[in-house]
Structure formats: C-alpha cells, structure tokens
C-alpha cells in the first residue's frame, strides 16, 4: 500500500503541488468574502445574500479603474491603486447606501423577509452589473503581470506560479485576519462591535449608538467583499455570475466554521479552498460539490460548526 502512494505521488506530485498553491490563493479570496459575511451577520443578524454581488462589483470596478489608469499611460503598479480604490469606493458609497435605504428597514423582521429582501437586492445588483459592464468578459491583469512568476522547486521539477497569487493574495488575507483580530479585541470600537453582536439591547442601554455601529460594520464588510473581488479580478476574466458562485461558497465557509469566528473562518476557507482545488485537478466532476461535502460532513458531527459555540438564548 505505501508503495502505491509513493508511486502515485511520483506520478502526480507536480499536479498535487499546483493544486495546493491554487487552493491557497483561492482560499485567501474566499476568506475575504466569508469574514465580511460573518461580521455582518454577527452585528446585523441578517444573512446578506447580496454579499457576493459586492464581491463582483468590487472586481468589475477594480478592472474598470485599472483599464482607465492604463489608458492614461500610468505604470503597471497603478493597478494596485485601482484595487484599493475599488474596495474603498464600494465600502464608502455602496455600503452605506444599501444599509440606509434597505437593510435598516428590515432589522429584527422575520428571517424569510430578510432573505427575500437581500435576495431581491442580489438580483437587482446582478442586473445593474450587466447594465454597466455588459456580458462580455473583462480582463485586467496588470497587477499580476507586474510581479511576474516564481519558479517553486518541487522535487526535481519547478512549478512556475504567479508571484501575485503566491504572495499578494495570501498576504492580504493574513494581514486582514491579523488586523481584524487586533481591531476587534484591542480597540474600543472593536469591543463595542462585539458588544452589539453579543447583546444589542444591553449595548443600547449603555448609551452605545447601535445604529451607527451597524452602518459602520456593514460598510466595512462590504469593503472587505469588494477588496476580495478586486484582488480576484487580475486572476480571471470577469463574467456575469461571478458574484453568485462566490456567495454560495462563502455561505459554505461560514456555516462550516460557525458564526462569529474570524480565525475559524480563515481555517475553514483554507480547508474548503484546498479541497475544491484538489478536486479541480484530480476529480473535476466533483469540483462543485466538494465544498458542500465538507460542509455537510462537518455539520453532521458539529451542528454549531467547527468553531461555533451554541448560543444560549436570552429571555
């Protein structure tokens, strides 16, 4: 038996290494979306189905700004400015707009209504995307080209892999994780966000402006989703539907990790990202279902998710 495993690896090792690298880069993107979704659910108690649209709009906006910058003759590194600008724009404009016009009106309503409203928002944003950017694929890969590729030694061979996917994507994800953990635990605003998550009524009784915290959190989560989309944009050509596939995957991550866990969301993103990527290389017919197989397997054993704690309901 061991000899067959060794044989398998000598035949497929290179492919396996590539799957790991791809999975890592993919996990980083999934994490950016899932952690925002998790944060928003924790504070607003709304499952935002349209969260994936913010990812898509972030991606399209980044590509458009990037293409615009290139048309001005700006150097390639300006593509990175485009990525950050896109996230800031979506977080600062679209986030507050959605929260104030729509979500604010459905806080505390039945789950079904909230799901229908955010699903409607998702449909609207999908069409808005098509109106603005059309249905033709859009590609802007300057940020990825700018850094070139790295040859990663793997056994006797090398895997050429883009430095962007190897360093930038996981780097931003790890930095986001660390910054978020620090912000939520070490700053007053972070603690207030946790306080509103734990008990909105008690936080209000302390004079905390829960409405402002909810606006801030939603906009921040929207910005994170957009940053995820912006970071993804150089690695792929953008087509309608990219938002839908992202949201479904990040739902799987949040459900598997359990609610309110940012480190848990990171580990689960890694698990699901790697699982999906290995499936892409070795069992492509299972690519779509692998994340859900992982999710169902985890939830069967731990219904509250890998890292979730069962909530004790207050009367």
């Amino acid at each position, binding site marked *: 038996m061991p000899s067959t495993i060794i044989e398998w690896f000598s035949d497929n090792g290179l492919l396996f290494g590539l799957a790991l690298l791809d999975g890592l880069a993919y996990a980083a993107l999934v994490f950016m979306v899932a952690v925002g979704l998790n944060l928003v659910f924790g504070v607003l108690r709304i499952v935002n189905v349209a969260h994936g649209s913010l990812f898509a709009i972030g991606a399209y906006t980044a590509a458009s700004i990037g293409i615009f910058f290139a048309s001005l003759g700006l150097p390639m590194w300006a593509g990175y400015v485009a990525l950050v600008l896109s996230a800031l724009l979506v977080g600062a404009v679209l986030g507050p707009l959605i929260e104030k016009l729509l979500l604010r009106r459905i806080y505390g309503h039945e789950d079904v209504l909230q799901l229908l409203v955010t699903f409607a928002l998702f449909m609207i944003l999908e069409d808005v995307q098509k109106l603005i950017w059309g249905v033709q694929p859009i590609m802007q890969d300057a940020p990825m080209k700018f850094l070139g590729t790295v040859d990663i030694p793997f056994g006797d061979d090398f895997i050429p892999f883009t430095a962007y996917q190897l360093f930038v994507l996981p780097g931003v994800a790890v930095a986001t994780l660390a910054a978020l953990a620090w912000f939520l*635990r*070490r*700053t*007053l*605003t*972070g*603690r*207030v966000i*946790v*306080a509103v998550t*734990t*008990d909105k*009524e*008690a936080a*209000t*009784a*302390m*004079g*905390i*402006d*829960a409405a402002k915290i909810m606006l*801030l959190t939603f906009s921040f989560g929207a910005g994170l989703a957009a940053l995820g989309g912006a970071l993804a944009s150089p690695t792929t050509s953008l087509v309608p539907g990219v938002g839908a596939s992202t949201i479904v995957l990040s739902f799987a991550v949040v459900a598997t990790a359990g609610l309110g866990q940012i480190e848990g969301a990171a580990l689960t993103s890694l698990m699901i990202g790697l699982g999906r990527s290995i499936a892409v290389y070795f069992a492509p017919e299972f690519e779509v279902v692998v994340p859900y197989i992982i999710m169902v397997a985890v939830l069967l054993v731990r219904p509250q998710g890998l890292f979730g704690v069962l909530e004790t309901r*207050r*009367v």
Partner: protein
Amino acid sequence: MSTPPVTAPLLSAKGLRLAFGGVKAADGIDLDVMPGEFLAIIGPNGAGKTTFINMSTGYLRPQAGSIEFDGQPILGLKPRAIVRRGIGRSFQLPQLFTEHTVLENAALAVASRLGPWSPLTPLLRPAWREEAMDLLERFGLAQVAESRADTLNEGARKLADIAMAVALQPRLLLMDEPTSGVAAAEKMQIVETLVRVLRQSGVTAVFVEHDMDVVARFADRVAVWSQGRIAALGPPAQVLADPVVQRDVIGISTHA
C-alpha cells in the same frame, strides 16, 4: 433649564396602556417616582412589571398615556436618547459582555458615557480605567476586576451589571430583579452594597423584587402590580401587611 422644586416627581407616568393581543400588560398605570427614593415593584409574573421598565426606557411604546422625566416628556425617544437624559436600567439576566474582564466592562460603560471616540481609540484609556476601578471598589468588586465576566458568581455578576449602569451616571436607575438567581445567603449583602452605592451617588431607584424581606428592609415605598394595574402603593410596612396583598401577591410570588 429650570430646576423643578424638590417636591416634583423625577419620573411621572400617567395612564399608560399597552396590550399584547388580549393580554393587558399595562391597563392604566399612574406612578410618580420621587427624587432620592427607593421604590420597589412587586407582583406575580406576567403582571406587567418588566413592561413598565421597558416603557420607561424606550424599549416599548405604550398605546396610550404619557411619561415625563424631570418634567420633560420622554415617550417616543429612542432607548439611547433616554439613557443620555439620565435613566439607566439593568436587566433581569446580567448583560455583561462575557469575554471581557469586569474592568473592561465597566470601562466600556465609562467610555460610552464620555464618547465619541475614533475608530482606533485603544480599549482602555488610563482615565477610564481609573474611574472604572474606583467604581468597582465602591461595589466591592475590586478583587475580581481582572476576571472574565463569565467566571463571576451570580451575585457578583448582578453587582457588576449594575456598576455598568451606574458608570453612565444616571439620575434614575430601573432594575429588573437585581437579586434573582442570587443565593439566599448572599442576597442581603448584595442589596446592602447596591443601596449604599446608589444612595452615595444620589441615584433614585426603582427595582422589581420578589423577596419580601428585601422589600421590607430597603424600599421606601412599594408598588404592587396586578394584571397591568397598580393594586396598592405605599410604605412597605403598610402595603405588605395588607391581607389582600398578602393573599394575591406574596402568596403567589414566594416561589421566586
């Protein structure tokens, strides 16, 4: 802002009515709370005691009636605006943020009173820490200041929860069952601490209580709630001796 004469009530509720479906949680509540007094609310479960607190703090809006605080109408104000006017509350179950230390909890309340702050303001400013520590000392909680809130026993949790409400420097504090769940042996000591700190701070208090010994010893007046109405109101010695109150209220609620 004119200062009302000392005889004017601090909180004045008139004709409060609120029904949930067919249940009358408030069926014409008239109550004046005088500055500096300790008013106990007793009555069976479901009589509308918590509803009164929720209406007075903006969590529920009555269908009819008015509530004035310090001569100003407060109905329709949001809970946060009412907190800013000087009405604090504590909940039946302590609402401490359990993964914080007791000191962090208290400092959060101090910071929230002093507000506003920038997004990157650190968790504990020395001034907040100092004030929070001072407050915890007054509540006898100094030795558990660095413990996580979820490691406290029920009595200490109740006190810490009320300390947070006091950190907001309310003029009136509404407490929903400050001794529920506290072991009988601890109860008197907890209430004694509570009353001492509140009196020192000049806070007027309304508290829902099931323990008649606590009521008899610490309340200046008692209001008896029954089916959304105030059935009796007066000094504890007089109200608790009333045979109707003894039969309908104390008989029912001694289990709690």
